[in-house]
C-alpha cells in the first residue's frame, strides 16, 4: 500500500537548543506528575466537586483527539478516495495521530483517580453500552492499536535489509530479516482493512466526544449545548485534520530546512472551504432551530467568546481559503490553517469548560499551575517524540528525481 512512498529518516542532529527546551518542559511536567501520583489530584489541580473536569480533559484529551484528526482525514483522502498526490503527507499525519493519541492516553492516566483501572472498560462484565464515554474509550483504544499497525511498515522499511544484530545474536540475522520480509508482505496485503477501520473508528469517537457533554443540559450554556454536538464535533474534526497537516508540514519544512510542499498543500486546502461551510452552516442552523440566535447579541462574555471562536476560528479562514493567493502562499496558508486550529481548539475548550456551569457554582475554574505544567510537559513530549520518529524512521517525503518526474506513483 505504501511501498511507493519515497520517505527517509531526516539526517540532522537530534539535540538542538529547541530540543533541550522541550526536555526542560518535560522535566517540569514530570515533577508535577510525581506530586499528582503521590499526593493526589487535588494537590496539583483546581478541580473540586463543582468542577470535576479541567484542562486535562478539555486540552489533553478533547483538543488532543481533535488535532490528531489529520491522521484519518489524510488516510481517507489518499488511500480510500485515491488522491495519490496527497501520499507525501500521509505518513507525517499518521505519526502525529499515533503520538497524539499516545499523549491523550498518558494525559488520561493523570486525570483518572484510579488510573490502574484503566483497563476495566475491556472487561465484559463492566461493559456499559449506554455510556458515551465507554464508546469513546473503546474506539480510542482500537484506533490507537490501528495507528501503531499503520506505523509498522515504517519500522520494517527502516530495518529491512539492514538487520545486523551484534555478537552472539548474529546467527539470527537471516531469520529476523526473513521475518521482516514476511511481515512486510502480509501487512501490505491487509493494510486496507486497518486503514478503513481507522477512518470508521475516528468518525465514531470524534463524534462521540461531542456527545459527552450532551448529558449535562442543565449545566451547559445554551450557545454550546445542543443534541447535534456529535455532528458538530465530527464536522469540525474533518475541518481541522487537513489544517493540522498544513500547519505541521510548513512548520516541519522550516524546522528541517526543506521547501514547503506547496504542490500538495495547495490542492489539499481546496477542500477546506467546503468542509468549513458544512460546519459553519450546521452550527448556524442549529442555533436558529433552537431559537438561540438572539444570545449572540446579549453582550454576555460567553457570547463574546462564541463570536471570537466562530469569527476568527471558522468564518475568517473559510473566506481566506477561497482565495488562490492564500492557497499559493506558504505564509498565508499557514495563517489560515492556524486560525482553524485555534478555532477548533477553542471550540473544544468552550464546550468542556467555558460552557460548563455548575448548578451551585461558588467560583470560576482556572487551571492550577500543576495542571498547566503537566499539559505543557505532554505537548513538549509530543514534539520531542515526533522529532525522534522523523529523524529515525522513513516518515518525511524525500524529493528525488523519480518523484519529480511523477514516477513511482501507483504500483501498489
Amino acid at each position, binding site marked *: 500500500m505504501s511501498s511507493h512512498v519515497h520517505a527517509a529518516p531526516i539526517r540532522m542532529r537530534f539535540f538542538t537548543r529547541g530540543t533541550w527546551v522541550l526536555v526542560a518542559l518535560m522535566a517540569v511536567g514530570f515533577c508535577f506528575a510525581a506530586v499528582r*501520583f503521590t499526593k493526589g489530584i487535588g494537590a496539583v489541580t483546581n478541580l473540586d*466537586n463543582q468542577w*470535576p*473536569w479541567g484542562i486535562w480533559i478539555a486540552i489533553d484529551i478533547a483538543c488532543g483527539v481533535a488535532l490528531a484528526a489529520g491522521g484519518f482525514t489524510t488516510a481517507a483522502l489518499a488511500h480510500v*478516495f485515491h488522491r495519490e498526490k496527497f501520499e507525501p503527507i500521509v505518513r507525517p499525519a499518521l505519526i502525529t495521530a499515533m503520538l497524539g493519541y499516545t499523549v491523550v492516553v498518558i494525559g488520561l492516566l493523570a486525570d483518572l483517580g484510579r488510573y490502574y483501572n484503566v483497563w476495566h472498560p475491556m472487561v465484559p462484565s463492566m461493559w456499559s453500552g*449506554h455510556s458515551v464515554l465507554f464508546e469513546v474509550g473503546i474506539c480510542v483504544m482500537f484506533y490507537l492499536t490501528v495507528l501503531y499497525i499503520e506505523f509498522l511498515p515504517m519500522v520494517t522499511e527502516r530495518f529491512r535489509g539492514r538487520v545486523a544484530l551484534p555478537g552472539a545474536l548474529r546467527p539470527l540475522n537471516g531469520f529476523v530479516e526473513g521475518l521482516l520480509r514476511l511481515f512486510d508482505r502480509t501487512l501490505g496485503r491487509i493494510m486496507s482493512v486497518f486503514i478503513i477501520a481507522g477512518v470508521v473508528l475516528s468518525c465514531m469517537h470524534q463524534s462521540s466526544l461531542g456527545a459527552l457533554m450532551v448529558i449535562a443540559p442543565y*449545566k451547559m450554556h445554551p450557545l454550546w449545548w445542543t443534541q447535534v454536538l456529535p455532528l458538530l464535533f*465530527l464536522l469540525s474534526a474533518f475541518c481541522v485534520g487537513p489544517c493540522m497537516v498544513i500547519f505541521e508540514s510548513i512548520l516541519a519544512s522550516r524546522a528541517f530546512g526543506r521547501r514547503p510542499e506547496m504542490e500538495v498543500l495547495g490542492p489539499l486546502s481546496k477542500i477546506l472551504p467546503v468542509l468549513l461551510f458544512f460546519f459553519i452552516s450546521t452550527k448556524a442552523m442549529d442555533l436558529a432551530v433552537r431559537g438561540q440566535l438572539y444570545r449572540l447579541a446579549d453582550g454576555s462574555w460567553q457570547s463574546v467568546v462564541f463570536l471570537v471562536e466562530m469569527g476568527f476560528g471558522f468564518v475568517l479562514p473559510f473566506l481566506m481559503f477561497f482565495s488562490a493567493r492564500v492557497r499559493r502562499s506558504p505564509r498565508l496558508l499557514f495563517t489560515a490553517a492556524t486560525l482553524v486550529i485555534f478555532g477548533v481548539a477553542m471550540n473544544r475548550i468552550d464546550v468542556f469548560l467555558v460552557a460548563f456551569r455548575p448548578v*451551585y457554582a461558588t467560583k470560576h475554574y482556572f487551571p492550577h499551575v500543576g495542571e498547566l505544567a503537566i499539559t505543557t510537559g505532554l505537548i513538549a513530549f509530543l514534539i520531542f517524540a515526533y522529532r525522534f520518529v522523523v529523524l529515525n524512521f522513513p516518515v518525511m517525503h524525500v524529493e528525488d528525481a523519480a518523484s519529480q518526474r511523477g514516477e513511482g506513483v501507483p504500483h501498489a
Partner: protein
Amino acid sequence: MDRRDFLKTVGAVGVGIAAADASASTAVHAPPDAFGVLVDTTACIGCRKCEWACNQVNELPVQPLEEFEDKAVFAAMRRPDAGNFTVVNQWPRQEHEGNVWAKVQCLHCNDPACASACLVSALEKQPNGAVKYDPWRCMGCRYCMVACPFQIPAYQYADALSPEVRKCTFCVERISAGERPGCVEICPVECLIYGKREELLSLAHERIGAYPDRYLDHVYGEHEVGGTSWLYIAGQPFPSLGFPELGEQSPARITENIQHGIFRRFIAPVALYATLAQVMWLGSRKDEVAAAAHKAEQHGEEHHE
C-alpha cells in the same frame, strides 16, 4: 472517490444522528418495588440530627454530636461533600417570619444520569431504589459528577491511591436488611418518611390535598429528570429552597437515544465501513483500468511504428 462520495459519507453520519433524535424516547420507570423517602420540608426544624446519624452509619470523619448542634453553619448554603453525604440548609420562609430547612443528599434518580454516564457500570440503580456505587469498578473519570443534574457526587481529590466517588448510599445495607436509613431513623419530627415510592407519592398528594394552605401542589421528584426515589413537599417554590428547576426527561434519555441511534445493531458503522471499502476498491479498479488502458495504448503505438 471524489468530493461527492465524501459528502455522501458525511451525510450518512448526519442521517444516523438525525435518526437518533427522531427515535422515540423509551422512558425508564422506577423499579416497581423501589423504596423512597418523602421529605416534608414544612415539618423540618433544622436540628441536623440526620447529618449526625448519617456520619455515624457511614463512618464519616466528623462524629461528635456537639458538632451538629452548631447553628452557625446555616449562614451559608452548604453542599454535600466526600465527608458529609447529607447537609441541611436554611432558607428564608416566604410570606411569613422565620426559616425553612431543606435536607440535601443524593435523590436516587429512577433513571440516573450518573449511571448512564459511567463507562464501567460502577454506579447502578438497584431494584430497591438505591443508586449504588462500586469503588472496585470505578476508574475515577468523574464523568458521573459532570452528568448529575443535582451536583451530588463528590470526589476524594486528596487521595492519591484509591479515591472514591462519595455520595448518599441510601443506607443500602440497612434497607436491604429491612431497616430504615440512618437519617430517617433519627428524625425526631417525622419530617422524613421512608416507604415504597408509590405509597409515598400517594401520601404526598394526600397531604397536599388535605392542607392546600400549607403545601404547594408540587411533589419535587415525582417527575423531575424522570422521577427520583427521594421526594419533597414544601410550602414555597422549590427554587427558593435551593432546588434546581428541571424538566421531566432524564438527560440519560437524550444521550442514550443518540448513542443507540448511531450504534443500533452497529448498522451505521458497518455501513460506513462497507461504503468506504467500496469506494476504495472502485478507485483502485479505476487505477488498474487506467493503467491497463495506458499499457494498451503504448502497445498500440509500438505496433503502429
